[in-house]
């Protein structure tokens, strides 16, 4: 019963947040810029062109009405037309969103893979050299500017060692001469469904550096949180009790202590997913990754507000959904959460 009520409340709040987010994006994209009509009308517009644009964009309608039509359009997937390219934004999103999600999901995965075991080991072997290196790494990762770290990784792994591609999502010979059929937009998945292992590996190789860039900071956080949580958990009485029952050390560490740390781990998923979505704007430029981030940063230069607004909204919705799923998972994993 509590679980049901908690779930309903959580879903309701998320719905409210979605409306609020839409409103905020509407205000910033349509009300704050000085004259959207001039932007829409193109370079050096005539007064007549601007007047026409005002009608097209419905700028003279009262604000509430404009918001309702904006929200309705967004809700139905009609994101409008790019000022610059005049292409349908929804079509662009279909290509760019999966690219960004693929990067974000993979980097989240990478962050957990690096951070959580490191945190567990650091907690189990407190004060060891591994603990120290991990702590140092997590302090450094907090201060490292994403865009600069990306360049350093390119320098080391691509220029010096030459083991990973410098940029892009697929090698030229594949993307130009023999492109993947567009199915999900996730290259890794599309390569599997098309049964092309070479393409899969190529996509993976291109994914590693940008994902690593985005994973560094969340991995540091993941390690810190996991370490702190595990140290606290390992001192609990039920761990002493488990030891008194003769359970083996690995079973206690992974079977009994780690499930108690799922809370912090889930928190890290949300955090690192958000970080990846955010950092995509920076990282995608540097790695020439054809995703939403690069789409947005190009739109910034041309003041293409419908594009920026649509991309911001879509990415934020992904993030809100992700948080909702994480919160509800939290209650499944630890049934006490819903009670509080």
């Amino acid at each position, binding site marked *: 019963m509590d679980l049901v009520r908690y779930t309903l409340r959580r879903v309701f709040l998320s719905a409210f947040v979605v409306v609020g987010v839409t409103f905020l994006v509407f205000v910033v994209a349509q009300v704050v810029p000085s004259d959207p009509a001039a932007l829409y009308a193109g370079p050096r517009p005539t007064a007549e062109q601007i007047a026409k644009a005002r009608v097209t964009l419905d700028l003279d309608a009262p604000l509430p009405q404009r918001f309702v039509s904006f929200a309705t359009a967004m809700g139905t997937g009609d994101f409008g037309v790019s000022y610059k390219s005049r292409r349908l934004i929804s079509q662009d999103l279909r290509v760019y969103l999966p690219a960004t999600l693929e990067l974000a999901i993979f980097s989240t995965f990478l962050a957990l893979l690096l951070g959580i075991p490191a945190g567990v080991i650091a907690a189990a072997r407190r004060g060891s050299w591994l603990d120290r290196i991990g702590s140092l790494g997590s302090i450094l990762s907090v201060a490292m500017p994403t865009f600069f770290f990306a360049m350093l990784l390119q320098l080391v792994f691509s220029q010096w060692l030459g083991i990973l591609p410098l940029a892009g999502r697929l090698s030229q010979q594949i993307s130009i001469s023999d492109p993947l059929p567009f199915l999900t937009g996730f290259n890794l998945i599309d390569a599997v469904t098309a049964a092309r292992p070479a393409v899969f590996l190529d996509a993976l190789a291109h994914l590693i550096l940008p994902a690593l860039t985005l994973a560094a900071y969340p991995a540091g956080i993941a390690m810190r949180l996991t370490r702190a949580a595990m140290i606290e958990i390992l001192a*609990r*009485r*039920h761990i*002493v*009790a*488990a*030891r*008194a*029952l*003769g*359970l*083996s050390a690995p*079973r206690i560490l992974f*079977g*009994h202590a780690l*499930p*108690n740390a*799922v809370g912090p781990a889930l928190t890290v998923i949300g955090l690192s997913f958000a970080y990846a979505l955010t950092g995509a704007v920076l990282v995608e430029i540097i790695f020439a990754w054809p995703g939403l981030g690069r789409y947005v940063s190009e739109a910034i230069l041309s003041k293409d507000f419908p594009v920026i607004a649509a991309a911001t909204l879509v990415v934020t919705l992904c993030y809100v959904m992700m948080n909702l799923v994480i919160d509800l998972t939290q209650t499944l*994993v*630890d*049934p*006490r959460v819903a*009670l509080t």
Partner: protein
Amino acid sequence: MRCATVKGASAVTLLEIQGLSVTIPSALGPVQAVRSIDLCIARGEIHGLIGESGCGKTMTGMALLGLTPAYAQVAARVIEFDGVDISNSAADLRGRRIALISQDPAAALNPVLTIGRQMDDVLRTHSSNSKAHRAATAVALLAATGLADAPQLMKRYPHQLSGGMQQRVVIAQALATGADFLIADEPTTALDVTVGAQVLALLRKLVVDRGLTVLMITHDMDVVAAVCDRATVLYAGLSVETGPASAILTHPRHPYAAALLAALPDAAPRGQRLAAIGGQIPPSTETISGCAFSPRCPAVMALCHTMSPPARGAGNHRWLCHLAQCAP
């Protein structure tokens, strides 16, 4: 090895400890959590380990389980379990021959794992039976601790159970290890009085039915009266009196044991003040000269402050005191 029992006859000794000490280094100098404890427990008995908080009860239990902190130094002249010296191998017996029933069952169970999973984790550690077989064993053990509807219970989480049920699960886990010696650390403190009584009755029944031996760590004389066959009284990390529970409860020999009994509410006649024990336990960082209880003893004599008290009594009832006869 023979050990005195209640009836005065001899029975097989399960645990024999002489001069157990646990020292923990600290910034203020070594802390003597346990100074010198002798303990002799016969197979099949419930042996009470009585004392105030800070007297070394729990640390003694932890030492027997090999669960003292890594930096603690454990030493003993004799420490034998079932006739075998275990001074270096206490941890090997942990969860095989010796199991712990801890104080607060809510804290002793993992909050995020089901009862079934926690039972199974113990069973798979100690046997190579199939999963189905283990599940059946788990249900049987839960039922044996008096839990109704054990199959349903397997799917529940600890927080969905009452304190009494949680403690029964903890006992079932201890049974699942196959241990024949249980260390029960204040198993009823966290429970309501009536529920506590039921848990004690269960332990008594298990001792009879399964031939278990229990070390009952407690500060509560009522618990001793309810279930213990024999008991040892601790004071400041020292065992000061040991004997049949009935003898200690009715004719305590050591002044401290006498004072503990007198402090019980129903020991004092109505309308009279309770006999509180004045003063405090000596700090565990101090070395004791003479008798540890001398600063608080109502029958203190001059030599109590300077000379260690001699061992008195014979057979199954012994104590450490300068008084030749009996406590006041």
